[in-house]
């Protein structure tokens, strides 16, 4: 009987808390962008044990590109369209990565900047931390990639679903093959080296990362947020903000990564001028109309509460829908579930308590 009474009490407390949170949410001024606070951040993913061997392999890979010169041919399947491309890759540490079509199609080679690790806003531990956040990494076997022995690391979610399979070259430590899966278990992009050799043996011109404007630090980012910019610290599905910088048109460029893929979100303050956009069509994304320019990568544009967002990423439509739902376009009703609807109210509660504590402390 006492247990039952305790249970009832706990339920009553919980109910009261939920009601208060709901009231706080209902009475909160609507329309204004919710400030991003610790309370509105997605909850930290459950930590899942990884095996040390797998972690060591991934740690080695995270720095291998900065010490290894290589070249090879890779086959790549785009997440968005399933399009297949074959690319010739040459990498020289400190200079960058040169890419061109493997079939000899004449195009200007693309040069990527030197690998410098994730941006300054990334969590401690960089790529490895991002990759192992909410995923368990396990060494599951050996395989051959491009005729060379490789370790196979499986990244799985707490549910047991496979998030990715990663092949690491045993000789160099480099990531040489990857298969990434979305939450529905669909393959969301894959790539593998078909030939691989060290060293690069070619001249790689200095990469273009210098063209980017300097990254913005945490304080400047906080200041932007107080001025009404959203600059979300995280996107759905564990994508964390790793870099922020100024971009064309007074935009703030925000780069997010989950250790497996990265997306760029550009925020501009103002009203979307649809007539000025060419090559875009209207797409229904989870019930919301957004503008999309097909291509590699695809570009998605929408208006939300005084900001214009542009998402640039090679990710499937489900992933885009989740990002759009987190920053709902004007005129659509965000439907992100009861818990997420409640969380702004909980955030208000937390802020109210925090303010009260601050007042009583001063």
């Amino acid at each position, binding site marked *: 009987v006492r247990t039952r009474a305790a249970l009832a009490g706990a339920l009553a407390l919980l109910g009261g808390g939920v009601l208060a949170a709901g009231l706080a949410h209902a009475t909160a001024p609507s329309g204004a962008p919710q400030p991003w606070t610790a309370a509105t951040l997605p909850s930290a993913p459950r930590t899942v044990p990884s095996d040390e061997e797998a972690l060591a392999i991934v740690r080695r890979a995270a720095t291998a590109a900065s010490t290894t010169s290589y070249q090879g041919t890779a086959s790549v399947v785009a997440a968005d369209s399933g399009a297949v491309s074959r690319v010739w890759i040459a990498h020289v540490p400190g200079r960058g990565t040169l890419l061109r079509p493997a079939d000899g199609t004449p195009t200007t080679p693309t040069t990527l900047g030197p690998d410098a*690790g994730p*941006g300054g806003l990334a969590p401690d531990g960089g790529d490895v931390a991002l990759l192992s956040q909410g995923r368990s990494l396990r060494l599951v076997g050996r395989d051959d990639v491009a005729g060379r022995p490789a370790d196979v690391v499986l990244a799985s979610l707490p549910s047991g679903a496979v998030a990715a399979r990663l092949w690491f070259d045993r000789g160099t430590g480099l990531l040489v093959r990857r298969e990434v899966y979305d939450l529905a278990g669909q393959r969301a992009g894959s790539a593998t080296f078909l030939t691989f050799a060290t060293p690069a043996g070619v001249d790689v011109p200095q990469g273009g990362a210098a063209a980017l404007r300097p990254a913005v630090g945490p304080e400047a980012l906080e200041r932007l947020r107080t001025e009404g910019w959203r600059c979300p610290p995280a996107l759905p599905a564990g994508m964390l903000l790793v870099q922020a910088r100024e971009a*064309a048109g007074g935009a703030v460029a925000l780069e997010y990564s989950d250790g*497996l893929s990265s997306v760029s979100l550009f925020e501009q303050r103002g009203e979307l001028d649809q007539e000025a956009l060419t090559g875009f069509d209207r797409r229904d994304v989870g019930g919301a109309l957004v503008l999309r320019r097909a291509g590699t990568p695809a570009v998605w544009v929408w208006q939300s509460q005084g900001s214009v967002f542009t998402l*640039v990423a090679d990710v499937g439509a489900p992933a885009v829908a989740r990002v759009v739902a987190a920053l709902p376009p004007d005129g659509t009703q965000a439907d992100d579930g009861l818990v997420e609807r409640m969380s702004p109210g909980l955030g208000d509660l937390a802020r109210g308590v925090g303010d009260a504590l601050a007042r009583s402390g001063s």
Partner: protein
Amino acid sequence: VSRCLGARAAALADGMLGPAEAERALAHVAACPRCRADLLAQREMRALLRGLSAPQVPGDVVASVSGIPVRPLAAPTPGLVPPPPLGGAAPLPLESSPHAPRPFSLVPRRPGPVVASVAAVTVSAGLSLLAASPQAAVSVPRVAPDAASFVADHRAAASASALTSPALRSAEIGVPATPGVGGPASRSFASAASAASVLAVVLDPGSRLATSWTSPSRTLGARVAPVTSFQGPSAHAGPVVAGSVSLVSPVMGGAESAAAPR
């Protein structure tokens, strides 16, 4: 000596009077403190309503207005001479009968202009409060994202990370791609599973690829995906027959056949 402006003060402030009439009215304003005060009130009201800062009133105008002695309210006294015009300019002769300049007072004889001014200030205060709130910007810039520049930025920024670098996502670096493949079911197929697992493949008539990974101890995962490509080293290449189950990956730790979901 000219006729007082009355309701025409509003029209003058709005620039609605004809040139000749406006000139006469302005000349009268120069000579008549009451109409000058009315006009100033009208102009301030418009400036406030526009949500802009009020025009700077020249100090000498303020001084001349506030320097007028306050008298008790009384009926206009005929025969009083108006004060000399500002700046010594002679007023244009207007046809109406002269009246005494009304004493400057906080309690006006005709409350209209002051009521209007108070209302204007109230409205403008409301407007400025609205403007200060984030969702009602007075002027919203029009934004057209520069997609080409953003894509270039994305590529450059994403290349900074070794594990997510687009070097292994060439679709993002503009290398031409062939469209996703449906293709004949007999297309050569490559190893696609981790070495510790068994890959079973079912290619159904709808060209959907079902795979299931099993290990000796557990099922690692299963999925059904449209066939988009067969890729990778073709060491295990072989025909895939629609509706059949094929084991195509190397097997470690003992083989177990896998039932692929249909």
